């Protein structure tokens, strides 16, 4: 479990904070991390990965600081950044040297992931396209078996079929104790997988909650005409997508992450947040 306690980070002492006052608990599961460009997503990923130390507050994994010098604590988390390069001629060469530090690494899962993406792992990294390099890296990262896996824009450069494969691999490779945080702008591509979300804007946390908690407070509706109770709605061709306060008499609806993201970046943001908090209290 990841705990953020009033976490903040500034790149320089007098500079504008890249992240400020973030307090959240992120339980095991797959979580969406969303926010506009420059909101602080990458900074948050760096803090959880332990490669940046909070300048305010704390960032904990299972009760101990994420930024640690102990190998057993460092290997709890792995970060796959958007344009990260792995050293080594091939992904197999890299895995042979790097996986020695990770006791939870599964060679079988690694090979199986590569095969799912149609790779052998012996392709020279230099000659791989951006998409294929990403597939090779994802195959490796998913096989590491780390407690926390941080994926920054994992679907970028992947073709439609590969996005579907990734969705399947994410669902099959992870166990109940693992936490995966997916930072992405393209919310819809993995939306059926998310167990929760962390949304940030302008260096501040908007909210962090599980799907269960959100659907207990908000209902996501699709209709032909707007619902009078709607806090937020979007008109699409032939239908209206809307968010209303959830009713206790109704079955909880599936969270439409894209709609929620759009609502939180619209003038109705405060109403949405108020509804979430009102029910909370």
């Amino acid at each position, binding site marked *: 479990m990841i705990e953020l306690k009033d976490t903040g980070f500034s790149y320089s002492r007098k500079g504008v904070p890249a992240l400020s006052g973030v307090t959240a608990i992120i339980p095991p599961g797959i979580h969406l991390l969303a926010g506009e460009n420059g909101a602080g997503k990458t900074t948050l990923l760096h803090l959880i990965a332990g*490669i940046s130390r909070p300048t305010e507050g704390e960032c904990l994994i299972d009760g101990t600081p994420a*930024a640690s010098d102990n*190998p057993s604590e460092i290997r709890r988390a792995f970060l796959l950044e958007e344009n990260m*390069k792995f050293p080594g001629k091939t992904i197999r060469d890299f895995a*042979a*040297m*790097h996986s020695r*530090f*990770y006791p939870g690494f599964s060679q079988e899962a690694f090979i199986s992931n590569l095969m799912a993406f149609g790779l052998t792992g012996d392709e020279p990294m230099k000659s791989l396209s951006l998409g294929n390099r990403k597939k090779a890296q994802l195959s490796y990262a998913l096989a590491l078996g780390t407690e926390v896996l941080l994926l920054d824009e994992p679907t970028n450069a992947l073709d439609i079929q590969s996005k579907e494969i990734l969705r399947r691999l994410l669902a099959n490779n992870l166990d109940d104790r693992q936490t995966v945080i997916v930072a992405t702008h393209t919310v819809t591509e993995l939306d059926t997988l998310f167990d929760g979300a962390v949304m940030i804007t302008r260096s501040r946390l908007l909210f962090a909650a599980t799907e269960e908690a959100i659907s207990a407070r908000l209902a996501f509706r699709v209709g032909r005409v707007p619902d009078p109770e709607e806090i937020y709605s979007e008109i699409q061709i032939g239908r209206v997508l809307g968010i209303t306060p959830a009713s206790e008499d109704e079955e909880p609806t599936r969270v439409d992450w894209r709609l929620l993201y759009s609502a939180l970046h619209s003038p109705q943001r405060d109403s949405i947040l108020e509804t979430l908090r009102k029910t909370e209290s």
Partner: protein
Amino acid sequence: MNRNSITATLPDSFSWKRVAAIAAYYSPYTGRQLICYLAVSLLFAILILLPSGEVAQLGLYTTIWACIPLLADFAPIMLAKWGDHRIVERLIPARASEKYIFYLIYFMIVIPASVYLIPLAACRLYMEIPAIQSPMLNEINAMQFTVAPLLRTLNILCASSAILTCLYAMIHCGTSRIIKGVLGVFAVKVAVGIMGAVYGIATVVKSGFIDGINANDKHQISAQSQEMMINAMTENTPYLATMLTILGIYVIVMLWLIYRDLKQRNL
């Protein structure tokens, strides 16, 4: 459970096995670098032993001994040559002290040994083969092996300060690491050069051979004057002590900064 993992059962305290695993992680690059460096130093050794005219030999000798320290100074650039892998490096589950020890052993011992030992052996061999010897080079070579311990320490500190500056740039800087490393090394070289010039002038003035030496046997002069100069330099204790102190402090600060960066794991 990963059967390949060597670190699963190791405690969190410092472990040489993890240092070896870090060395193995870097082996595709360090292996290639060592092969290149050994090949270059072998080439230098052949050139030192190549019978040629005295002037050509002196020119070659000077060039070779100017290039060898640069090879060692810029060796840490290997860490940046294949792109920015700093995130992967920072995420390696090993103690900062283990990464630190690997860097120091590799860049401060293995690399200098790979570039210096073969040419030095060639110089020693040169002195044993009268057929290719020139009197002046013979004297210079002989002096190389009989340098006073304090001057040898000064040489080691000069070399260490340049290597550590380059290594610090590779570990600390996020952008333009190669350029910053190269500029850092040149800055150190210029600073050391200025200090050396002041030291040399002070020694010359103090020793009283400012007017130079007039004689007919130029070979004898060169060897003699160098020997006199070196003797005078070792006797000029206050300047030598100042240089040693400045460089010693610089090396300690760089060692601390590198360790601090590795310990903080901050990008």
